[in-house]
């Protein structure tokens, strides 16, 4: 199958970017990334610079393959990452527009690759548990309610890819931050530092220059892991009670 790719090229964050059009011969069994590999092979053979894009696991769990395909982060299919998007979903001769994740807090490194270290700094501001766990414990030492476990696990499914930020018209990182706050704050080991965590992570999120949530739900709709907006509500409540009631500053 022949595909027309309209792909974003940009030297670095300060350079002016533009779209470039390429025709790629792909087959329907390829993943979107494999199709891009073909494009890059062609470019290299022609002595041109290949398109920079991030990828790692290629099985939907690392969150590296960040790009916006026809307006949707990770492409138009629900609950899949770019590497899980296959060319069989496209028709011969179709034009596909590929852009980088767009947000001030995700500066462009080159072409489709963006710098998401702002997420790392949010995690460093409280997305961890700082107690010593000691030696191996009996699995049933700390009892946790099944429903709570499920909620925490659903939040922990976040792969930190940044699709929520890319999809949000406000460039907000609330879904990511909320997922990371929830999955720790719901569990007994995480509860010990829940106020400090909510305050620290939300403040870092603000400092990184992400936008404000307007409860539109584009993040939830585009999230490859289906992280729910309920996490944002829980974080809001947590942040408010930590601000007003806790002795944490």
């Amino acid at each position, binding site marked *: 199958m022949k595909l027309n790719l309209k792909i974003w090229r940009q030297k670095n964050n300060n350079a002016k970017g533009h779209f470039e059009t390429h025709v790629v011969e792909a087959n329907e069994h390829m993943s979107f990334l494999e199709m891009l590999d073909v494009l890059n092979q062609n470019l290299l053979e022609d002595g041109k610079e290949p398109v920079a894009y991030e990828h790692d696991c290629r099985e939907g769990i690392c969150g590296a393959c960040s790009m916006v395909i026809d307006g949707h982060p990770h492409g138009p299919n629900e609950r899949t990452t770019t590497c899980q998007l296959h060319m069989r979903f496209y028709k011969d001769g179709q034009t596909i527009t590929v852009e980088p994740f767009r947000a001030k807090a995700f500066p462009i490194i080159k072409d489709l690759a963006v710098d998401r270290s702002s997420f790392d700094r949010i995690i460093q501001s409280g997305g961890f548990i700082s107690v010593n766990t000691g030696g191996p414990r009996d699995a049933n030492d700390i009892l946790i309610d099944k429903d709570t476990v499920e909620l925490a696990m659903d939040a922990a499914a976040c792969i930190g890819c940044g699709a929520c930020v890319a999809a949000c*018209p406000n460039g907000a990182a609330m879904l990511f931050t909320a997922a990371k706050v929830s999955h720790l704050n719901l569990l007994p080991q995480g509860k010990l530092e829940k106020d400090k965590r909510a305050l620290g992570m939300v403040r870092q999120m603000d400092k990184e220059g992400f936008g404000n*949530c*307007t409860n539109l739900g584009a993040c939830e709709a585009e999230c490859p892991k289906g992280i729910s907006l*309920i996490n944002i509500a*829980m974080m809001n409540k947590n942040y*408010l009670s930590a*601000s007003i009631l806790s002795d944490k500053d």
Partner: protein
Amino acid sequence: MSWLSKLFTSSIGRKVIMSLTGLFFVLFLLVHLLGNLQLLHADGGKAFNHYADFMAHNGFIQGMSWIMKFLFGLHAIVGLILWRQNASAKGQKYAVKVTDNTSFAGRNMIWLGILILVFLILHMGDFWFQMHYGDLGEMDGVKDLAKLVAIKFSSPIYVGWYVFSMIVLGIHLWHGFESAFQTLGARHPKYDGFVAALGKILSVVIALGFAIIPIIMYLNH
């Protein structure tokens, strides 16, 4: 910085201001609507005029009215700050624009809000200012505000603008009411459905309730 200023300069804190003031306006709108409905009494405006006179002279109501004006200003200013921040946080827009994952109301809160602000300023000039400082003539010992309303609502252009503004208000509430609960973290499967339904019902009731009055008065004049 004190804990309070830290809270209200944070993104969540600012949104809490938006949600609390917004929910307060819904209460105000319901009270205002109940008052306005007296215009539909076929008593030459007597009931409405006495109600307007009470509202303009009661100390508690007057105090609340200034609190309302302050909160409305706050809602507008914080809303504008958030909108500016969001536009700059997004930076460059996508070449392929997708709108099927968000609602029209949600995406356009700022524009709906600005239209409401314009309406409100004109509306205050037309009625609130006239009631307090204008020469309206008297009826039954109180200012005849109903007569002024009837004159205004005899113009199809005025009625059209009024009805349009109420539709805008309804759309603003359509997103705003439910969104306020999400911002406050007041969400639970037990009452999520109720809040969502209440938001939609209130949006329609408020928009329709306010809009029907000028339409009926225009048709009857």
